[in-house]
């Protein structure tokens, strides 16, 4: 991932947002500090109601933060007047869960809209629309109205529309939540492709860990209006530090309770050793039998990540030997017997 040295393209400093209404006030975000670098695919994940939609709308100032600052490409958005703010928005594309296409405009007309806003001539806008239709693989749908397109096609048109003004950042608000798994997959690979080819920074708001695993390089976990954890997807996935992170990484987390009362070890594979037959070697070397209680392996960016929960032998010495062996293989091992009830 590029540019940890250069200054971030988006930076939030002590950002907060409180909604005031007759029924009192609701704090949607508090004390958010976040840096997003150029070229990143940055996931912002959280349960519904955690504040993630408000957060993404703060980035392009559709929601005005009540505290703190948003910096985009060296500008503090709160200091801009309406006109400059509209100009800044032209360098940020956005796509939505419900696509939000104009129903009375053709696919081509939809893509031309942001260009019309930016004052591009009609001939040039049409030329650009054609390129973008090609980029999203829908060249033959220029004249189709949104009602004639499938959900996946609509989202592709929405992506083309968001890219029309060659923005620096693409904001995706639950962009795949209304799509079936196959279509989700294809939209995600399109986004990844766009990120690689155009170098555009992508920010993805989602409640699904699978979306983050598939394409994100970095992730921030938002829980109860604050950032619970942030870092590379690799780190968060292998070593979730907070309860909120664990809940998202292991959504059906009731496995521990089913364990029978013995010592257990949780082993985390961090991409380096997942393909080695560590467990077989361990069994042969320690001459110990173990019980595999839980295993979950995932492929993230071509490397294998996962965790394994082993029930250790009853004999304390053998159990220690097993732990020692696993630790000697540079695996992250922790005993989880205190969870056992």
């Amino acid at each position, binding site marked *: 991932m590029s540019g940890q040295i250069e200054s971030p393209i988006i930076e939030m400093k002590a950002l907060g947002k409180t909604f005031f209404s007759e029924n009192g006030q609701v704090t949607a975000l508090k004390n958010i500090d976040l840096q997003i670098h150029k070229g990143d695919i940055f996931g912002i994940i959280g349960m519904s109601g955690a504040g993630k939609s408000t957060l993404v709308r703060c980035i392009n100032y559709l929601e005005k933060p009540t505290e703190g600052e948003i910096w985009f490409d060296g500008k503090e958005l709160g200091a801009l007047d309406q006109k400059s703010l509209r100009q800044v928005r*032209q360098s940020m594309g956005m796509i939505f869960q419900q696509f939000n296409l104009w129903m009375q405009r053709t696919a081509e007309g939809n893509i031309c809209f942001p260009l019309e806003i930016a004052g591009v001539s009609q001939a040039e806008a049409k030329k650009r629309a054609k390129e973008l239709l090609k980029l999203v693989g829908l060249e033959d749908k220029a004249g189709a109205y949104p*009602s004639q397109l499938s959900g996946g096609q609509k989202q592709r048109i929405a992506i083309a529309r968001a890219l029309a003004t060659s923005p620096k950042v693409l904001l995706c608000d639950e962009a795949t939540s209304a799509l079936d798994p196959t279509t989700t997959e294809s939209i995600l690979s399109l986004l990844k492709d766009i990120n690689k080819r155009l170098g555009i920074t992508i920010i993805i708001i989602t409640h699904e860990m699978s979306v983050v695993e598939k394409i994100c390089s970095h992730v921030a976990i938002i829980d109860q209006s604050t950032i619970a954890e942030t870092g590379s997807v690799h780190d968060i996935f292998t070593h979730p530090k907070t309860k909120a992170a664990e809940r998202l990484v292991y959504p059906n987390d009731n496995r521990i309770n089913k364990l029978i009362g013995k010592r257990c070890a949780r082993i985390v594979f961090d991409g380096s050793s997942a393909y080695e037959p560590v467990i077989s070697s361990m069994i042969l070397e320690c001459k110990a039998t173990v019980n595999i209680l839980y295993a979950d392996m995932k492929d993230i960016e071509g490397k294998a990540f996962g965790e394994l929960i082993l029930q250790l032998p009853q004999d304390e010495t053998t159990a220690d030997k097993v732990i020692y062996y696993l630790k000697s293989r540079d695996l992250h091992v922790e005993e989880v017997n205190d969870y056992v009830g």
Partner: protein
Amino acid sequence: MWDNTIILMIVKGVFETLYMTLLSTLLAYVIGLPLGIILVITEKGGILPETRVNKVLNVIVNLARSIPFLILLIAVLPLTRIITGTTIGSTATVVPLVIAAAPFIARLVESSIKEIDKGVIEASLSMGASPMQIIYKVMIPEAIPSLIVGAAIATTTILGYSAMAGIVGGGGLGTIAINYGYYRYEKGIMIVTVILLIIIVQILQEIGMKIAAKKDKRK
């Protein structure tokens, strides 16, 4: 009694009615369309929220809409005389028709524009569209089918009002129906004018619906 003069009078009545109706609709839209749009955008959560302006306009529109047309017709006679120089005939009737129809049209426009998905407006904002661009390029085009249906409703309602103006010599088929049918008990002529009014309403409504269906790309 069906001599040439009567037939000529009825033909003239049809044209006067159409003239009053269409001219009034057009002028009422000149006021009602922007008013309806302002009602939407100044609302809380709209693209140019101005709660106070919104409240004042709402009260004005409601007041104007609650006055019965016949009372309004007579109440604005002095104004009608100032504007058109007379209080009888079809041109004079246009004045009260516009005053009565504009707030009604504002409500029709308001409800058409409110049908647009909020997300579509949000998408436009996210692209850096200005409020004016959103009105011209998003709100009106997206609401077109509904606006046309509204226009058909408005036109036929105004046609009904214009016939009512016959009671004060407003011209058109309404005047003929009242003069012959009500004052002279010539039921034949009255029935003919009523049937003609029905036919005109049918045609206008049908044209509106056809255009709206053709413009609707949502299905």
